[in-house]
Structure formats: structure tokens, C-alpha cells
């Protein structure tokens, strides 16, 4: 497909690559300002407590300590919702109560901030923290969502009676689920459990803030949603929005975590109080104990009904999620997950609900997949189970129920492009997928020692299907802006504000801009990272940057191009309709001798003495009212050691219908990164909280295990390169989907290998052995 494009579809090097490779790129923690102080945060050692008093005399007397912030010092400021997302259009436009203070008198979870210091060095700041004498009154706490909703349980928040943070229903219900289940020929059901997962960003959260001589608060922020961060910081500190300037440096990973405010409010508060620049860099321990991690679910119960021929007739879900001590972004994980997974297949009867429960644990929030991975883990295993009971191949069952163009898309819109069938067929072919009976007989080949009449190591294969969104229309605000300005040499400046979190977004936007203008991608300069300069941008989340900011970019480029061509038409004595731009030159169709370089036209327009001086520039606001779902198929091969329970994943194939791949290299990178993150979710990452105390036990990588390169399977990524009618040059979003289908595909492969259904992630060796022992007893 990309053959028709000059720039889109090519594997360009990233414009920000050299700066990152040489170390020139500035990340938040690299920022150094004259007179800058170092901030540090004191965190509660208890799951629920009241700060009775804080004696700051020792800390304040320590030479080099400039400022100490206690709960008494922040009462003039507003409390806030770190998730900043009080605008979902579904569920009656619900609002998240702004319950959090910069530092809290009532810390509600282990790791909640209770005080902060700013000092001349990290050493002094650390010593100052140690000198803060806090008197706590410990309060009863509740950690488990099932306990939390029982009568008489300790109340986590006054905003959540009975600890129900939000009760949410599936926004697109249809039919009569109970009747359809009663009438179904085959009903499969299961209860699943998924944990919190930490984002494990390469760079930890960091912010530098200072108040300039004009009284403006300047904040270096890693927030994915810079303009929302500006609005929220202005709200917290009771300043007009124009008095806050948010600067976006390079960001060392986010995966959804920087969709919320992290270090910014504390850094800004210390800067406002000390009147000095303050740098605050969170430790890895700060991450695990105070930032949002993936929303966990204590229980996800799913029931699905099928006709004898395999037609899916009903799907019903019930979710119990844990939000932690602040609601933030967590509740929406249920709605997004239900919407995406229940919208994956044709099904007439759908209903679902979720109780999102508050507990005295660090908050939950958005992470790559945002609920889709949870529901996929449940539903795609049940699809597998249904296929077995129906005597069908799992791929065939999914093909049979797949949605087609013209069906209703997961978020209730018209589905304009889906190539799930191509994903299933191409992926299956590359993987060597065969009906189960054949695979099982061929799989019995590897094994060190014979046990229980079979090989010790059993091989299995599994697969699953997936769809995800390109942005979150119509559930969330969708509003992007771009400015395209021609320079006098024919290059352009593209002013946009995506979050440079490592997803190659600068490259993708420069390719979209260059393609539209007929120039080279390297002639597009990205101007970004300053809310004074950029127009409003909702930001980079929900796999929307290429799709939505790319859409704004294409439209702004088109507008600038129209101005250029009108000027060129006059100069070349031709009709605008007859002009085209290739390789930076404007040509007249059928008259190749009549042409003019774009640079000459721009120069003439700018350095004009004829009264027609102009600088070609386009500015477009874009509010996508649609969302083109991306489709994918995942195929996993596993080896299960029946003696130790260890699962290895030697091979993985992912086929993705991502629309036009703007840069196939970036698409492959996203999908392989997703595979690694999904592998951790499926097998290794186990966020642990002491059930007796509420203390977070996994606070660094010695106890929290992310898979490394040695754990990675041999991976094949297939791109189904078919253009979407809505996305810029046919592109869809591809940031999140990579991780979504990993756990269900692996779980299905484990079943194929050893015949046990794993209903909980991470799938540990002990859990496998326990399941095998249960199987023996049966």
C-alpha cells in the first residue's frame, strides 16, 4: 500500500535519534538552573494514618535546608485529581473528586506524601527528611476490595460510601443477555484475576519548577498531557492559566503513567515556597509506592453463550477492580476494557458492570491497554474454551464471529475498516498454525526425562484476537492542533505538542507533514514542548498521537500547501488543480519543463517587494469524532516444564492491522516492546503488598521482575498494511495494542501444552504446579 507514498511507509531514522544517542537530549532530570535546589519527599510508612504533628525544627535548622513543606503549609492551595480527566463523556460525564493535596495530613496509603523539603544538595535534603519528626495516629485500613465492600469496613474516602469509588456499566449494552444465555447451546464462563502492574519507565518521574521574575510558574513536566497539566497546576496553585508555563523535555518512557501528574505538584509547591528553582526526581521506590500502576482486578467474571454452529450470541461481564486510595484514572479501565473486548466480535446481547473499589493501597491508573488486557485475558481464554467445546479450531471460531466493515465499532461508531481476518490468516500462516489435534501429536518431541507417561517439557500453541482504539472518541475529549509554517528555504516548522515518550512520534508527524507537502521528512522541524508556543493539545494517550495529532498535522499542512500552490499557480501561469509537489519542487502536470522549487516560492513570498508579502502557514484544530479500531492476532508457542512449572515462550507471532504503517520500523518497535511488557504481565511481574500491613513489598527491580532480553521469544511482527479511511494517510494508532494479547495467547498455549486453564496473572511456576496437581486429582 505504501507504494503510492513518497515519505509515508519509509523506515526513516528518527529526528530526535542523534540527540538521544549523543546525550544532547535533555530529560527532566538533566535540567540545571542557577541556584537550583533539590527536593525530597517524606512518605507515610502506614497504610492509613493521621499526621498529628510534624516537628520541623531539626530539619529547618540544618544548614542548606531552604524550605520544608508540611500539611499546614499547603492549606491555601486546592486539592486536585492527579488524573486530570474530569471530562469523559460516558457514564453521565462523571467527575473524579479532587481529594489529594500536595502533601497530605491524612495519608491514605503506604507511600502517600506527608512532607517535602528543598535543600542545596541531595545529601542535605536527605538528612533533612531524616530530621523531620512526625507523630502519626494509625488508623484502621483495608487492602482487599472484597473486604472493602463489606459492611463495617474502614472507609477509604468520604467521597466513596461503602468504598465503591465508581459503579460503572458497559456503555453500549444491547439485547437481553440473560435470555440469550438461557437459550445458548454452549455457555462458557470463568472468573479471572489480574494484578497491578508497574509501568517501569526507564526514566523515573522528575520535574523542575521555578518562578520567574514575571511571577510565572515554569514547570518542566513529563506529563503526556501538557496542556491539561498546565490547567491543573494553575488550579492547584490558584493562578490564572497564563501564569503557568509547562515545558515538555524528552521523556524516558511513560506507558500511561505520565498521563497523570507525578512529581509536578510537589516540585512546583517547593519552588513557589522557596522562590528558588527546585528539581525533584522520584526514586524507583517512590514510583512503586506513590504513582499510579495498572488497575488490578480482584475478580472479572465473564459468561459467553454460543449457538451450536459457533455464533456468539451473548456476553456478560462483572468486574471488581481495586482503585487504591485515590480514584484518579483507575475507574475508566473497566469501561475501556468492557467496550473494547465486548466490541471485538459480532454479538447481539451484551451487558456488563463493574465495581471499582477504593482500598488503602497506592492508586491505580492508566497503563498501556487500559483494561483491554484484563478483559482480553478473560474473554480470549473463554473463546478458546468455547472452540474446544464446539469442536472448532480457535482461529475458525474467531473468523466466524469477526466484525466486518459497516458493523458497529467497539465505541459505538460505524466500523469503517477492519482486517482482523487478514491478521488471523497471515499470522496463522507465518506461525504454522494447524488444527489442535495435529499440533498436539507433533508437539511431543522435547523432554529431558519422561514423567507420568509423557515428556517432562510439553510444548503448546495458543492464539487470540484483539482490537484497540486510535484515540478514545467519543469517550474522552479529542482535540488536537497543529501549525505548519513554511520557511524561506522550503522547509517547514511543524508546531505540535505530543509527548516524546519514545514512541517515535516526532518522526511519524514529520513523515505525515512531509507527505502532504511533497517535501522530505528531514525538512520538517518539530517545534514543541512549550505551552506558550504550542496550541492546545489534549496530548498523547489512548494510542492517539499519530492518528489525531497526525490528523491535525495533515490538515494544517494541507492549508499551508493551498497557499503555496495558489502562489505557484500565478507564478507558473497554471491552474492550481494542475500543480503537484514532488521532492520539494512544484510541477505543472503534463508540462514537466514548467516547475519551481518550493524554496524559491517561499523565498519570493517572504522577501516580496510587490505588496503581496506572505508567509505560507496553516493552522488547524482537529477533533476526531471517530476512532478507527486497530485489529490484531497473536500466536504463542510455549514450553511448560511439568516438573518445575516454569513456562518458556520460545516463539511469538503478532499480526497487526494498524492501517497504513507510517514508519514500519516504529510499528515493529511498538509491537515488540508491547510483547516484552505483555510477557512481564503474563509471567513475571508481581506487584506485592503485605496483606498484614499494607506495605508495598516490591519497590525495586530486585523484587519486581521485568523480563529481559534473555526472556524474550523469537518474535515475528507482521503488518497488515491496509489504509483506514479516516486516519492520516490511512494510519491507525499502534501504541498500546502490542501488550494486550500476550497473556491470553500464552494462557491458551499453556492449556494446549498441559491442559490446565490459568485464570490469574502472573502465571507463576507454583501456580502451574498447583494446577497440574489439581488435574491429577480429578
Amino acid at each position: 500500500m505504501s507504494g503510492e507514498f513518497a515519505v509515508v511507509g519509509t523506515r526513516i531514522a528518527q529526528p530526535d535519534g542523534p540527540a538521544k544517542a549523543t546525550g544532547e537530549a535533555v530529560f527532566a532530570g538533566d535540567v540545571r538552573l542557577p541556584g537550583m535546589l533539590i527536593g525530597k519527599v517524606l512518605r507515610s510508612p502506614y497504610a492509613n494514618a493521621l499526621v498529628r504533628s510534624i516537628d520541623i525544627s531539626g530539619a529547618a535548622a540544618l544548614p542548606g535546608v531552604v524550605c520544608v513543606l508540611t500539611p499546614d503549609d499547603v492549606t491555601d492551595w486546592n486539592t486536585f485529581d492527579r488524573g486530570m480527566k474530569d471530562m469523559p463523556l460516558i457514564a453521565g460525564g462523571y467527575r473524579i473528586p479532587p481529594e489529594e493535596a500536595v502533601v497530605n495530613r491524612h495519608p491514605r496509603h503506604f507511600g502517600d506524601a506527608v512532607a517535602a523539603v528543598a535543600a542545596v544538595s541531595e545529601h542535605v535534603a536527605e538528612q533533612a527528611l531524616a530530621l523531620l519528626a512526625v507523630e502519626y495516629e494509625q488508623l484502621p485500613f483495608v487492602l482487599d476490595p472484597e473486604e472493602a465492600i463489606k459492611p463495617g469496613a474502614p472507609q477509604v474516602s468520604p467521597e466513596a460510601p461503602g468504598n465503591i469509588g465508581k459503579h460503572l456499566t458497559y456503555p453500549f449494552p444491547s439485547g437481553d443477555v440473560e435470555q440469550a444465555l438461557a437459550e445458548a447451546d454452549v455457555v462458557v464462563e470463568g472468573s479471572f484475576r489480574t494484578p497491578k502492574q508497574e509501568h517501569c519507565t526507564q526514566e523515573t518521574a522528575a520535574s523542575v519548577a521555578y518562578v520567574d521574575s514575571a511571577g510565572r510558574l515554569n514547570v518542566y513536566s513529563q506529563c503526556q498531557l501538557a496542556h491539561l497539566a498546565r490547567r491543573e497546576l494553575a488550579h492547584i496553585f490558584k493562578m490564572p492559566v497564563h501564569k503557568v508555563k509547562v515545558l515538555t523535555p524528552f521523556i524516558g518512557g511513560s506507558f500511561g503513567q505520565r498521563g497523570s501528574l507525578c512529581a509536578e505538584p510537589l516540585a512546583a509547591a517547593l519552588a513557589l515556597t522557596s522562590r528558588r528553582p527546585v528539581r525533584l526526581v522520584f526514586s524507583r521506590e517512590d514510583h512503586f509506592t506513590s504513582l499510579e500502576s495498572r488497575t488490578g482486578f480482584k475478580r472479572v467474571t465473564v459468561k459467553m453463550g454460543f449457538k451450536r454452529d459457533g455464533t456468539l450470541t451473548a456476553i456478560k461481564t462483572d468486574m471488581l477492580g481495586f482503585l487504591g486510595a485515590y480514584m484518579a484514572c483507575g475507574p475508566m479501565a473497566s469501561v475501556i476494557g468492557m467496550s473494547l473486548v465486548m466490541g471485538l466480535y459480532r454479538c447481539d446481547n451484551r451487558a456488563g458492570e463493574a465495581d471499582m473499589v477504593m482500598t488503602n493501597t497506592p492508586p491505580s491508573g492508566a497503563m498501556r491497554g487500559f483494561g483491554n488486557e484484563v478483559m482480553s485475558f478473560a474473554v480470549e481464554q473463554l473463546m478458546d474454551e468455547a472452540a474446544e467445546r464446539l469442536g472448532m479450531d480457535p482461529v475458525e471460531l474467531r473468523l466466524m464471529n469477526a466484525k466486518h466493515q459497516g458493523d458497529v465499532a467497539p465505541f459505538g461508531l460505524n466500523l469503517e475498516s477492519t482486517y482482523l481476518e487478514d491478521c488471523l490468516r497471515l499470522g496463522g500462516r507465518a506461525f504454522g498454525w494447524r488444527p489442535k489435534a495435529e499440533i498436539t501429536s507433533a508437539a511431543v518431541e522435547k523432554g529431558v526425562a519422561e514423567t507420568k507417561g509423557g515428556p517432562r517439557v510439553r510444548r503448546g500453541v495458543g492464539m487470540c484476537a484483539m482490537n484497540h482504539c486510535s484515540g478514545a472518541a467519543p469517550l474522552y475529549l479529542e482535540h488536537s492542533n497543529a501549525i505548519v509554517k513554511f520557511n524561506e528555504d522550503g522547509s517547514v516548522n511543524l508546531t505540535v505538542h505530543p509527548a516524546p515518550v519514545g514512541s517515535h512520534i516526532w518522526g511519524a508527524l514529520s513523515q505525515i507533514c512531509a507527505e502532504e507537502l511533497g517535501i522530505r521528512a528531514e525538512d520538517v522541524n518539530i517545534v514543541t514542548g512549550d505551552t506558550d508556543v504550542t496550541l492546545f493539545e489534549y496530548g498523547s494517550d489512548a494510542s492517539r498521537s499519530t492518528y489525531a495529532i497526525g490528523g491535525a498535522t495533515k490538515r494544517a499542512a494541507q492549508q499551508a500547501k493551498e497557499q503555496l500552490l495558489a502562489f505557484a499557480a500565478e507564478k507558473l501561469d497554471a491552474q492550481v488543480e494542475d500543480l503537484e509537489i514532488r521532492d520539494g519542487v512544484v510541477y505543472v502536470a503534463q508540462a514537466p519543463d514548467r516547475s519551481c522549487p518550493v524554496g524559491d516560492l517561499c523565498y519570493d513570498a517572504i522577501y516580496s517587494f510587490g505588496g503581496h508579502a506572505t508567509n505560507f502557514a496553516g493552522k488547524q484544530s482537529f477533533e476526531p469524532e471517530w476512532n478507527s479500531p486497530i485489529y490484531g492476532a497473536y500466536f504463542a508457542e510455549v514450553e511448560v516444564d511439568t516438573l518445575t512449572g516454569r513456562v518458556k515462550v520460545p516463539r511469538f507471532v503478532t499480526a497487526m492491522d494498524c492501517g497504513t504503517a507510517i514508519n514500519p520500523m516504529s510499528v515493529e518497535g511498538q509491537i515488540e516492546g508491547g510483547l516484552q511488557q505483555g510477557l512481564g504481565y503474563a509471567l513475571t511481574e508481581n506487584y506485592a503488598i503485605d496483606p498484614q500491613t499494607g506495605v508495598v513489598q516490591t519497590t525495586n527491580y530486585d523484587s519486581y521482575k521485568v523480563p529481559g532480553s534473555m526472556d524474550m521469544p523469537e518474535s515475528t511482527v507482521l503488518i497488515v498494511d491496509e489504509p483506514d479511511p479516516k486516519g492520516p494517510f490511512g494510519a491507525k494508532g499502534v501504541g498500546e495494542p502490542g501488550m494486550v494479547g500476550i497473556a491470553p495467547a500464552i494462557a491458551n498455549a499453556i492449556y494446549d501444552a498441559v491442559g490446565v486453564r490459568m485464570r490469574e496473572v502472573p502465571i507463576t511456576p507454583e501456580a502451574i504446579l498447583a494446577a497440574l496437581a489439581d488435574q491429577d486429582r480429578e
Partner: protein
Amino acid sequence: MYRLLTPFDYFEPQSVREAVELLARFGHRARVIAGGTDLVISMKKRQLTPECLIALAGLEELRFIEFDPVAGLRLGPLCTHAEIARSPLVREHFGMLATACNEVGTPQVRNMGTIGGNLCKAGPSQDTPPPLVALEAKLRLLGPQGERVVPLDQFCTGPFCTVLSSDELVVEILIPPLPPGGAGCYKWFTKVTVTDETLAGAGVVVVRGPGDVCADVRIGLGSVAPMAIRARKAEALLRGNRPAPGLVWEAAERAAQEAEPRSRAAYRRHLVKVLVNEAITELWPLTADLPGGLG
């Protein structure tokens, strides 16, 4: 929580003798630093806050690998795990030690961390002690009062505790040669990921004697007790007998009972059983017609 290092004095002695003198002078206020891979972490976590560090890195006299058919292998404590893992001498005569050294940490840790430092740390879940106790390694210690030689299984007295006094240095690790008909291997299982810490490790030596019986067997277990231990009851079951599959399995189960793991205890015991069974089952055929030992 990892924090900035607190200030300390730093000494670089030019000889072992000078190092011992410095140790005698500073005693408990000092710490010896070799590769620093463990010590620096402990200091960043404030588990240790030494006033001074005595750096051994420059002492070439503590960096050697020598083999003699009678005396066996002599290892300098400053040898890094990577140096031992790739040493032709170690690989030829004590492959199980090379295997274990190659399993320590990550490439960076193996290139910096030393075997002496690893043994002196005496952590419960280290990879080098299980094969070394199975090989009946000894340590030569030097202090102001002179030298003494301590068998490795008497060197550790508990988790992170050794008989080394604050003014002593480990100056040599001695591994006696395997008897004829002897073979050994190291088997391990990591906690979660491939490059993770070891959840259970077993260094096993089997010696085939006349009559095709197990003349000797030594089973060193790591990560499943406060320190590396010998599974002597399991060894006794096998010694003098033919290691038929049933008996090997029984011995493996006995070894599992001898383990005293704390966390994930049932699973670690189970792994001991699997690893010991696997090791002996693999080793026995290798010992047939062996001219000399094969570690």
C-alpha cells in the same frame, strides 16, 4: 531505598601485607572493597556505612588461577566471575565452577564481582558456594597472627556471617582435585527471569568406584538454607550403592528434606529434589571409564 554514598576514606594498599595492616588498624570501621558489586549496594541502602574502604583492586598477587594434578586448583580471590568462567584450566578440571560463575548476576556483575568478595559476603543465595562446598574447597586466610586454612563449609556461620575476623583477608581458594572416576555439575533454577537470582542451586560431585557403585557423592545446596550446605543424609543414602533411578529419587527427596528454605519453602524444596535428581542422573553415565576427575 538506594541513596547517595556517605563520605568515607579510601585506601589503596600496595601489598597484601599493607592491606592486613590497614585492616588491623581500622578493624570494624573499615570494609574491604574488591569488585564492589555487593558492598556499594549495601552502602547505598545504608546497611553498611564504613568509615573507610580498603581497595584491593591493585593487588595483582591476589589474582591468579593455577592448577596442579596433586594440589588441585588455586584461585586468587580477586579473580572475577567472568575470568573464572572463561579460564581454560577451570573449564577443563572444574567445569561446574565455571558454570556457576557464569550464572552469577549479569555480564556487568561478572566482570566486576570477584569470587573472594562473593564468598566473604556469605549471602544465602549465591551461585559459587554450592559447587565449591561439593568440591570441598578451602580458604586460606591471612591476618596479623599469620595464616590459617578453613574448609568452605566451616567458613560461613550463618547468613552474611563468616569466621573471618575484621583484620583477616582471604588470600587463596584451594580446590582439591577430583578422584579418578569423579564428575560434577552445577544445576540451578532462577527466581523469576532468566538472569534473576538463584532460587535453588545444587552443586553435585559423583565418584564411580569399583563394582560400579557410587564410591563417593557430595551434594552442595545453595539458596535453600541460611548458607550453602552439604546434603549429607542424601549423600549417605547413595554412597556405596548403585544409583538406580529409584534410589536417586529417594536421595533427592532426602536432600530436599535437609534444605531449610524460608520464603517459597515448599517450592524450593521441590526444586532441590528436581535439581539433585537431574544432576545425579546426568552425571552417573559420565563417570563410566573416566581416567581422571571431571568436575
